[in-house]
Every structure is written in C-alpha cells, then in structure tokens.
C-alpha cells in the first residue's frame, strides 16, 4: 500500500480513527512497521530479556489499538506519535519489571526517572555515567531519539523550562566526564 506508507503519522492515526475496516487495518499496520523498532529500543533500555521486550512491544501497540473506536474514543495527537509510544513503552517496561519481581530495579525507577537497567556495564551507562537517571533520560531522548525539547517535555510530563535546564546541566556534566570529555575537546 504505497499510498498509505507515504502518509504522515497524523494522517494514519486519522484513518485508524475513522476509516473503513480495511483502510484502518492497513493504516495501523503501517504505523506498527514504522515504529516497532523504536518501541523495542526503548524497552531494551529497561529490560535485557528478549521475550520481555517483545511483551512490551505487544502491550504498547495493544494500548494504541484500544484507543481507536470502538470502543476507544479515538486518538488525537497533540505531539508526535513517537512521544506517546515512548511513554507507553516505558511504563509498560516498568510494569513488566515489577511483575517479574525486578523490584530492585523498578523501585529505583521513579516513573519520572531513567532506570538503572541501563547499567554501568553497558556502553551507554558508561558514556553517561556521572549523570543522574533523570539527566540520562533527557540526553537519550534528545540525542539518540532526536526528540525536540517540547516533545521531551510532553513525554516526561514536565515543563519545557525544566527540560532545558536539565539538559544544560547534563551537558555541563558530560564536559567534565572522564569518559567523554575528549569528544568536546576535538
């Protein structure tokens, strides 16, 4: 369905909201194909078990599906779809952690904070060591997920000014980090 694949996320969401059975199904499939890898990458930051990651993938898109009528009321995007998917995937991953008795990790994870699942052993953990979980999350969203500051604010449900100040503090900390400061001096 080349035509649907060229549509924006907002247009595809609208097709899912109001389209006929066939069109809505195909529109949703395009959205799924377009964003499934991103949802997996978000889940993988929290969970290292492939099966659990795929559970999060399924839960995330099931949540999205149920927003469409019936019985859902329909989905209105007030930010990029990626922003919504990030929030849902993150919460789903934390829920999976709790369900699988990873209370030690999940309890460290205030829903507003980036989890310790990204351990110092991981490369990202090492590169971003010295940052608080909150700072690490903002850096990841900004520079790995290429989210705008406004979308980050929506995803984290904090004011835009807070995102800016946290980002500024994060980068200042990274400038002094022994793992990455050399990048700033090049």
């Amino acid at each position, binding site marked *: 369905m080349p035509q649907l694949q060229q549509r924006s996320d907002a247009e595809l969401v609208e097709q899912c909201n109001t389209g*006929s*059975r066939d069109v809505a199904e195909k529109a949703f499939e395009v959205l799924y194909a377009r964003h499934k890898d991103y949802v997996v990458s978000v889940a993988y*930051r929290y969970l290292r078990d492939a099966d659990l990651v795929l559970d999060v*993938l*399924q839960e995330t898109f099931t949540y999205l599906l149920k927003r469409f009528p019936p019985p859902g009321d329909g989905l209105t995007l007030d930010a990029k779809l990626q922003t919504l998917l990030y929030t849902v995937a993150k919460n789903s991953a934390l829920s999976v952690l709790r369900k699988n008795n990873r209370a030690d990790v999940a309890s460290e994870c205030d829903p507003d904070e980036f989890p310790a699942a990204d351990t110092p052993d*991981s490369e990202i953990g090492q590169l971003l060591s010295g940052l608080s979980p909150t700072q690490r999350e903002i850096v990841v969203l900004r520079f790995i997920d290429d989210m705008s500051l406004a979308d980050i604010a929506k995803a984290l449900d904090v004011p835009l000014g807070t995102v800016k100040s946290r980002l500024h503090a994060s*980068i200042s900390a990274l400038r002094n980090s022994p793992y990455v400061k050399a*990048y*700033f001096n090049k």
Partner: protein
Amino acid sequence: MKQEKRESDELPEALIARLKMADESSPIITARVDREISNLAGKQFSSRPDKRRAAPVWLAVAATMVLAVFLIQSFERTDTGTAELYSDVDGSGQIDIADVMALARRSGHAASNAALAAFAMRVVSLENNGDAS
C-alpha cells in the same frame, strides 16, 4: 554569551554517533509477534463497515451516471430521436440505470448527452421513490 549557551546545549556529533551505536538493540521482532499484532488489529477494526458497503447507494448511482456520460462521449450522435429513452432498453422487465448504460453502449442511438443524463436522473428519482418497475 548567547552563542556559548547555544553551543553548550549540543553534544559533539561524534559523541552522538557513538551513543546511537551503543543504543542499538539486539532483540529481533519475530514474525509471530508481527502476526499477533496484525490479528489484534483485525479484531479491533472488525466492527467497522467494509469499504464496499460503506458507499451510499446514491453515490454508486451517481458514479454510474458519470460513467454513462463518459461512454457516451465516444459515440457520434445527433440531437434527434428519443424514442428509446425512458424505456426498458435491456429487456430486464424494469427501467433502471442498466437501461441507461445499455443505451449508451448501443451504437447508432440518437439520444444526446443531455437526454441520456435526464434519463439517468429520472431513473434515480424513480428508484428513490420506490417506483421503478
């Protein structure tokens, strides 16, 4: 000062590239998961009307009329003779849009575009009133 503030809100490109590489996830999305999601979508939207049934009858009739006019364009005609209009051209036992189409296809008919369009309009009117026979 403002320039410095802007620069300090960005990371070096090389560091960004390294972070992105480090973030590459390894779990493979299996075909089973893809199918399950697809099946869920099928169930979710199953109560929606089928696209073919969703079009109202009047729209189908209007589309047929447009097609009839289009077919008519390919025939030579004069603006005389309307004996076959408003008649059961195809012998189906009732006067309907099929008769308009049959007349349009028949070569050598003498009805004009306007007359055929009027025939079609009358048929629609009859059908809407339940009077087609």
